């Protein structure tokens, strides 16, 4: 594998509108530029996506389009369990899934139209074909000081797999989160990183 090949990574971030998927993707994107790597990303926009299913494509070391081909993603970062399953077609066979186990129940479920699958069933299903690292990132964020830092916990969790130095990612976190939440977010990042390193 050439140097350039090693630095290529296709990552999919899935979640629910309002969870901070775009900020998570921005942290990685900005860090990639600082590290001098080409980067492409595609994201779901619009107020109407609040509460809706969202997906971000991130392609580190890529010069072409921003959309990851089917079965092209090396990694799937799921901010929500059900959303881990929804976009599986994009993940390579044997790819890595890093998943937040905290469900967000859609209105279609609260209003009694459908059921939310058991998180344990989701985990069993995903583990059949993929490498799964799952934990409750909402709790880790809460321990770090703010539940809203869940997205940064997840960036920390994926950070070990990215071809970008940790320090560069941390600088990017500092630059992009609100000034007064920097400390909380740095703790959140470390908590996520540690969780995956331990597993």
């Amino acid at each position: 594998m050439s140097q350039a090949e090693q630095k290529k990574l296709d990552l999919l971030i899935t979640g629910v509108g309002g969870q901070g998927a775009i900020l998570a993707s921005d942290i990685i994107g900005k860090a990639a530029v600082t590290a001098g790597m080409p980067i492409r990303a595609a994201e779901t926009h619009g107020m109407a996506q609040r509460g809706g299913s969202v997906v971000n494509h991130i392609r580190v070391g890529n010069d072409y389009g921003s959309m990851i081909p089917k079965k092209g993603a090396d990694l799937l970062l799921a901010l929500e369990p059900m959303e881990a399953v929804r976009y599986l077609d994009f993940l390579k066979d044997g790819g890595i899934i890093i998943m937040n186990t905290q469900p967000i129940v859609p209105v279609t479920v609260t209003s009694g139209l459908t059921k939310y699958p058991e998180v344990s069933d989701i985990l069993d299903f995903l583990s059949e074909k993929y490498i799964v690292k799952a934990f409750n990132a909402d709790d880790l964020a809460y321990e770090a000081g703010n539940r809203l830092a869940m997205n940064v916990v997840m960036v920390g969790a994926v950070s070990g797999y990215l071809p970008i130095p940790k320090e560069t990612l941390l600088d990017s976190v500092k630059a992009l989160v609100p000034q007064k939440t920097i400390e909380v977010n740095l703790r959140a990042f470390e908590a996520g990183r540690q969780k995956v390193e331990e597993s």
Partner: protein
Amino acid sequence: MTMREYMLGNVAIARGLLEGGVQVIAGYPGTPSSEIIDTLAARKDRDYHIEWSVNEKVAMEVAVGAAWTGVRSVVTMKHVGLNVAADPFMTLAYAGTKGGLIAIVADDPSCHSSQNEQDTRRYAQFALVPCFDPSTPQEAKDMLPYAFEFSEKFEVPVIFRPTTRISHGKSDIELGEIPVEKPAPNFEKLLDRWVMLPKNARPRHTHLLSIQQPIEDALAESPWNSLELKPDAKFGVIGAGIASAYAKEALVELGLDVSYLKIGVYPVPRKLILELLETVDAVLVFEELEPIVEEQVKMIAQEAGIEVSVLGKNNGFVPREGELDVSAFLEALKKTFDLETEAETSGTSLELAPRPPALCAGCSHRATFYSMKKVFGKDAIYPSDIGCYTLGIQSGTVETTLCMGSSISVASGLYHAGEKRPICCSIGDSTFFHSGMNSLLNAIVNKANITVTILDNRITAMTGHQPNPGVGYTATGEQTVQVSLEELCKAMGAEFVSVVDPYKLEEIQEAFKAAKEFEGVAVVIARQPCVISGKRAGIRRTPYVVDPEKCEGCKQCVKFGCPAIEFDEQNKCAVITALCSGCGVCAQICKFDAIQEVKR
């Protein structure tokens, strides 16, 4: 030293406009185009005029006025916006410009946030103007200064057509210089150019046709088209716009030795196409939406008498609708070479609950729709419009959505057709200013008997909270006149105008009852700021909780559909989550007085 920054495509487009020396920017918000003006309006060191106009036609005309003084101007919108602005645009092509004029019209293949998938390149063909079709956000930025120069050279407006994946794609972008010197405006009184009466329009049409070939020749030499001929290749690929990036990625990945033509600007480069066609037996055309390049390639082949198979959308090799990607290109290649295609399955037995986008917790539109349904009932007809409130389809109060501003006119049409059922239509504040005003005026003058609900959340929420004439400030945050919806409606002749707070269920339901009884056009203005912009502006309300002792588990509050209300199946009791914004509507719905404000 070169500067690289990580940017959203629309931010890169805004940067490209600055690098091109833009002086006047006007537009109407519409996903995926909105962030271009948001970005430029937020800059501190502005030496340009920028505005959110009330609709795309008006925005186009503002840009035209500016360009006729010799300065560079731009108008932004989404694809369907050009339908609104088509009237000035088609004639502008005849009159032409002095300063460069770019109409940025963002297309949305796959309808990520749109009511249709129309292809703006057809408008470019229709109007006989050049169209720039970037394949990456970097190219989008780089094309804009070129497009301004091109527009000035030929004194013709140009279209710039990003697609969703350009506008909302992100990428590392290499920045260029922003010019400091800009020309002073100087309106030249060229009556034969600026007054399109028939005597002047006829020769301008002739002129426009006469510059088509020079335009095509100039563009063929531009860096946006490129041809890579492989000496022995008998198969060629033509990729256009963003689809060219998908095709290129797949070809490089597969290591295929085929000739490749990338097209980034129209009219298509006849010369390059001929060069390609003369060397191959078959060519696959890969482009999003309409088969525009494909049709041109067929025409060129036929005119030149070249025997070549042109594969693409018309013969089913590439899908005609929706968004393309690398996988779609691989599929097309497999069909071309008659290879087996493997069935795509993720093989899940898990039933995933659908997660449609929903109105926010505490959104006042939900309360308005709830009351509307209560008063007008199941039997009534509910025409609606385009905005966040279209999500009211989940409340059963959105039964038509055609285009911006159409809800009131569709309601009128239903009534005049003889519908006897009550008709209650809904439209947002921004949409009302956009083109709903004309429809209301028409409904009143022509004596429709309908209820018009203006969902006034004091902002253009869906596209990212842009100001409209009702909010009292401009795109740059400067204070301005705050237009009164109620006075406006009265001035148009509305005899029933009621302004209500949708969070007060009794109040709004009384208004709806009176409106239903009213003979003629009744206007109910349901006013409550958008929960998101309200929160940002410092509105803090006390959240609510369910008292499990009092909750009977009737699920009335759950059925209301607020994302902050869940049902605890184990304890048969409703639960209000941290999402609660404190609107208090559920407390009014609860018959058992089980929902109370959190005690401090």
